[in-house]
């Protein structure tokens, strides 16, 4: 163990917060609240450190290779402009929201829009790449759900739409069952990860 102090602090804080859930003692509850408040502040500082690191990385990239650092230059200019506007007018004021609404949202929405084309193409070529039973089942399920999501010209097929339709059966029984299985796995994984951190086996904080 390279850093026993940090490991001891992490384990101790974790145990205090965990015991605060199960033992309703005011001392533990208050202590847990203080520690959680520290975590929120430290996470915000970490976000600020991340922004500073992003600026430095692209600044070095521009300094070492001026010809290939055009995109880095754009990033730095955008960062500086948003920072200046947000700092001057406030984060929820008109100009920062304008920048966000007219620049960032269209860009990201366009990327999401490309997803529709790519997924459609992938589904159409799926059987050419892999032709087996599971592929056919996957495509059949996708087609039924899509067809049941939006009625074609308002014409509702009796066995496809509604609470007892095929679409509802697919989305509420097998899909929910699979989702619950995933959630149970996530919960067990979270418990195992928490225990490993509490026992010092995993040290994501280093050391």
């Amino acid at each position, binding site marked *: 163990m390279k850093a026993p102090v940090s490991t001891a602090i992490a384990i101790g804080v974790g145990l205090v917060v965990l015991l605060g859930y199960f033992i309703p003692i005011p001392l533990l509850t208050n202590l847990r609240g203080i520690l959680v408040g520290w975590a929120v502040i430290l996470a915000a500082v970490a976000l600020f450190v991340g922004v500073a690191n992003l600026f430095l990385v692209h600044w070095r990239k521009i300094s070492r290779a001026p010809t290939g650092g055009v995109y880095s230059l754009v990033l730095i200019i955008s960062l500086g402009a948003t920072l200046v506007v947000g700092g001057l007018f406030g984060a929820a004021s008109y100009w920062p929201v304008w920048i966000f609404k007219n620049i960032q949202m269209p860009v990201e929405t366009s*990327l999401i829009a490309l997803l529709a084309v790519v997924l459609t193409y992938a589904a159409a070529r799926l059987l050419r790449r892999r032709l087996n039973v599971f592929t056919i089942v996957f495509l059949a399920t996708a087609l039924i759900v899509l067809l049941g999501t939006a009625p074609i010209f308002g014409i509702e097929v009796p066995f496809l739409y509604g609470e007892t339709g095929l679409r509802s059966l697919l989305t509420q029984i097998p899909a929910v069952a699979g989702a619950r299985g995933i959630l149970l796995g996530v919960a067990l994984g979270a418990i195992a990860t928490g225990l490993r951190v509490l026992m010092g086996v995993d040290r994501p904080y280093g050391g």
Partner: protein
Amino acid sequence: MAEVRCPMCGKPNPPEVDTCQFCQARLKPLVAPEPSESTPPDQAPAADDSMSDWLSSLRDSGAQEDIEHEPVEDNQSLPMSGSDMPDWLDSLRGSSEAGVSAFLAESTPEGSLTGEKTSGAEGEWPLAAELPDQEYVPEWLAKVELEQKLLDEPASPEAAEEGIAGGPEGEPEWLLKVRSKREEDIADSAPLEIPPADAGLPEWLAQSNAGEPLESEASSNNVSGWLTKLRRGQALDETVQEADAGEEVAAPEVSVEETVHIEAAPVEAAEETTTAHAEEPAPEGEIPDWLAGLVAGKAVVSAQENIETDAEGLPDWLADLDKSSSQEPGVIVPFGEEEPGLTFDWLQEQVRADQGIPISAAAGAGEPEELEAEKVGPFVGDLSDFLEEEYLTASETEGVPTAQSGEDLAPAELPNWLEAMRPLGAAALGAAAMGDVEAQIESSGPLAGLRGVVPAEPDIARLMKPATYTIRLQVSDTQQANATKLEGLVKAEGVTRPVPGRPAITSQHVWRAIIFAVLIGVIFWKAFTGSQDIPLPALLPEVLDTSAIIDGLPANPVVLLAVDYEPGYAGEMEATSSALIDHLILKGAYLALVSTTPNGVALGEDLLQNIGTLNGFQYQEISQYANLGYISGGSSGLLGFAEAPRQITPYALDVNSTYVWGQAPLQRVQTISDFDLVAVLTEDADKARAWIEQVQPKMESKPLVMVLSAQAEPMVRPYYQGNPKLVAGMVAGLVGGGSYESAHPNLLGGIGPARRYWDAFSLSMLVVLVLIAVGIVVDLSISAVKNRKGEEGGKAK
């Protein structure tokens, strides 16, 4: 006179000094040796003048040892003739023979080492009278004559009955006769006179007779161990000599007893007779306990009445030893046949090995005890360790049969595999290399005279030319051919081959372009035409529950609205949530906006602006809603906010950074449960799960509503369908938003985003289905054609 060389360190010293100048060892004995008057000049050692006194005494002792051990060899071999012996041995033998002759002629039977010799009458000791004075008689012959005379005389029955050893079973006849004769002499003898001169005695005995035995014994404490052993050996020889002369003590045990008395007893004990020694041992305070016990035990051999009394003060092992000896006092148990535990096993084995007695024979399988006694010797086994060592050393030097040499052993037969493993070359090399080394004899230093002790330049001598091995790889033709093929393959991998040019337009590009064109065409057609022909979906159960929850809120509720979606999903999320938010505003709710993503702050502001644009109402910050900003820390931040929202987000993000918690309606909010409703807008299932797991338990009975994208619905639905419901209501996707708008047609001016998007969404969804179906058909057709071509090609071949 020449300088005197120290017997201890060997360095020369002036003749006038008494002690060595270097090691302080005594150069002159405390008792000055008197020249033997009775020794004829022609029988005196020729080298006496050149030898020092200690060497002379040592030679005398060696000669007396010869006298002692010669009876053992008399029956087996004849003495060497004087012509075959080397000079030094001849002189040594001459001196010893002279000493023996003089001793036999002049010593009395009562002569003891204590100095209290009882002079035997010459008429009672026939040997001295019959031997010629100056005639050379070998000692072995003198012994034979003595034994013959003793055998010729009749033994008195009384003496035999009064013998010391109660059981003469193991004793030879000559010894019994000697013992009988001695008993008669004891009974008839008067106090003997000390002869005026010890003409026939060796030098050391003359010193003893000179009346200073005390100083000699006292000085023995200061000499080294080897000299002490040597003196003990001399004493032992003397006792044996007395036994040969017909002393009272005929058994070896008695001789040992006397020896012990000589070494340990004080002057008073030394002056007593042998019998007195046996009956009256020295005081315990003057001798060690072990020696006292040993003396007492041995005294029982000659006087049985003192056995038990003396054995009480002995240790167990010594008491056992004495008891075992006392059980058969007259029996001389040869070494190796004694009771187990009397001697050490290793010592027995060593003695047997030295005397050539095989172990099986030593076990006493059918061999008489007398024969064993003759082979082993009478003293071994009953002596102390150091005495046995001395005795065995002397026996070995006198020609006791030794173990068979290695020439008599049959060569070992090694198995083939072991023979093959023998490092013959290394052994030969080592032998050759060590031959010269072993031939070297050290000429100086403490190792002088030893051969091959310190090898000279062993490493250099062992150097040899390393064996040469061929490095030419022997391969067969097949291996060579395979290697050539492998080499060709490796070279081919390194050769750059031109990459075949891909066509500018492939089927992939065509498919992508077709899909894009169809989708964008349908969307543009419906968007620009403003078609609303396709009806909205029917009211969904989860939407109905959500609407009922909002309807059930109190007037002017305080609602926490979490905007936790990314900008890319803003179109779907606005269309899904606009009707719900407008529904809340119509209820007069005060909205508190928070977000766990940095983009949520702007997204919330944009969402409210868009809703205000739709319904024609501009929401006023602080008075109608408060943007509390970003909650950092993920799940931890949510937990902290749920427990203490005022501490996590104390100020609003307005221009003045207003502390909204001090104003109405947030003034009554202390924890998350003080909010009337919590509505979470997210497209990420993990974020939705974090809100459900961290915040919902703190909300007590207050409802939690989820507004989700279509992709997050399957993961959140279990929380909604569970019992109890962790999620009270849920609006998912454009279908859910359209369903909510259809349920509340008065919201958002009657035409909400869901309604605007619904025709384009529905038609594009149909196009997507058609494209996928077409693609599946085309792919299956291509695959079928290829398979058919493949089958036809296979049939043609």
